[in-house]
């Protein structure tokens, strides 16, 4: 039996929300993919990049990659929140249904730069890619 990457997404959000300093730092919340237009800055988005399965003789692994980005109105906030995210997720033990966490590690920064939003404000996007490997149940 194999499960999808959905429990991993839930576990990531749970882990981020479990950090009080991070929750108090983000006024706009946590969103999957893209945030609605009227959301206040700063906010966090996360997105699944890839989730290939790896089969061995005795186990099934799901090797996912997630991007977690911060959008903020100034680069200092963006980098500070990104550091909090790294603290929360890097080498973290994620608790998820029907899968056991083997690895959760930040593997790269995102090469993104400032953007201009619809109101003409300069918005800074800072984030990283996280590699999360899980073992599937009954693999």
């Amino acid at each position, binding site marked *: 039996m194999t499960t999808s990457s959905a429990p991993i997404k839930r576990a990531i959000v749970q882990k981020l929300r479990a950090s009080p300093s991070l929750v108090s730092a983000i006024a706009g919340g946590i969103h999957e993919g893209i*945030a609605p237009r009227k959301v206040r800055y700063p906010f966090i988005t996360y997105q699944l*990049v*890839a989730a*290939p399965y790896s089969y061995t003789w005795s186990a099934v692994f799901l*090797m996912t990659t997630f991007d977690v980005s911060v959008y903020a109105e100034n680069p200092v906030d963006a980098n500070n929140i990104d550091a909090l995210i790294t603290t929360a997720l890097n080498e973290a033990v994620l608790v998820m249904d029907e899968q056991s966490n083997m690895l959760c590690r930040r593997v790269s920064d995102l*090469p993104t730069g400032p953007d201009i939003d619809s109101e003409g404000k300069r918005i800074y996007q800072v984030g990283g890619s996280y590699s999360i490997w899980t073992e599937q149940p009954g693999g």
Partner: protein
Amino acid sequence: MTLESLAELIFQAATEALGTGAKLVEAGAKRHAPVRSVFAGTPQPHIEGHEQEDEDDPSTRYAIYNDYMRPINIGETMSKRTALVKAGRPPQWDTTSQNEHAPVWWRQRRLGHLQSMRSSGLVEPKRNIIDEPMKDMLSKRGAYEVRSKRAAWSTWGHVHIGGRLRGEIYSLSPSINGHRAEAWVISPTPYAKFQEFGTRHNVAHPFLRPAAEESREEVVGLIRAAVAEAARTSGSGAAIEIVVRL
């Protein structure tokens, strides 16, 4: 044979396999690359024997890619090539499925093709293909994007409509830098970064990294097979243990 020359021979074989692996990643990236939807979702008249292009349908997108870039069927060929790799043989491009998808769709993306269809009376003539594109061929959004020239891009002497990101993914020949071999798969399209990582306004549509992740095991298998083959055929007779990591 000295150990140095043996190592050089093995490294050369591994580098060539890495180049083949880069082509696999390139093909995967082309499958994942988002394509601007400009064509209407209704069946096109006057073209018999071919399916309507639906850019949301991955299988048709593979066919489009195959018709234009290489005479292969990615879905079928991948499994055949994987079997070859597992058998320790180098993968071959499959040319048997060349005629399964006649080279229609990419040509249909050419502006000249649309214009020739108009001039030959195959479709309802309009004043100008750019000013007033055929509504039975293009979606409403597609018509706007053709009219405003946002969707047009040039390659190989042709102006195409949409598909620029997918058409501009390349794998470079592997290069050796000291003790390190590299093979790059690049997407030089200016907005590729925004598709790969997303922006405040656009959700990300990653296409390079998923291709790399999905091809990882196959690329390692290719290199492992090439290294084993080089060590076996070098005639050294030495017992060598080689670990390939990616």
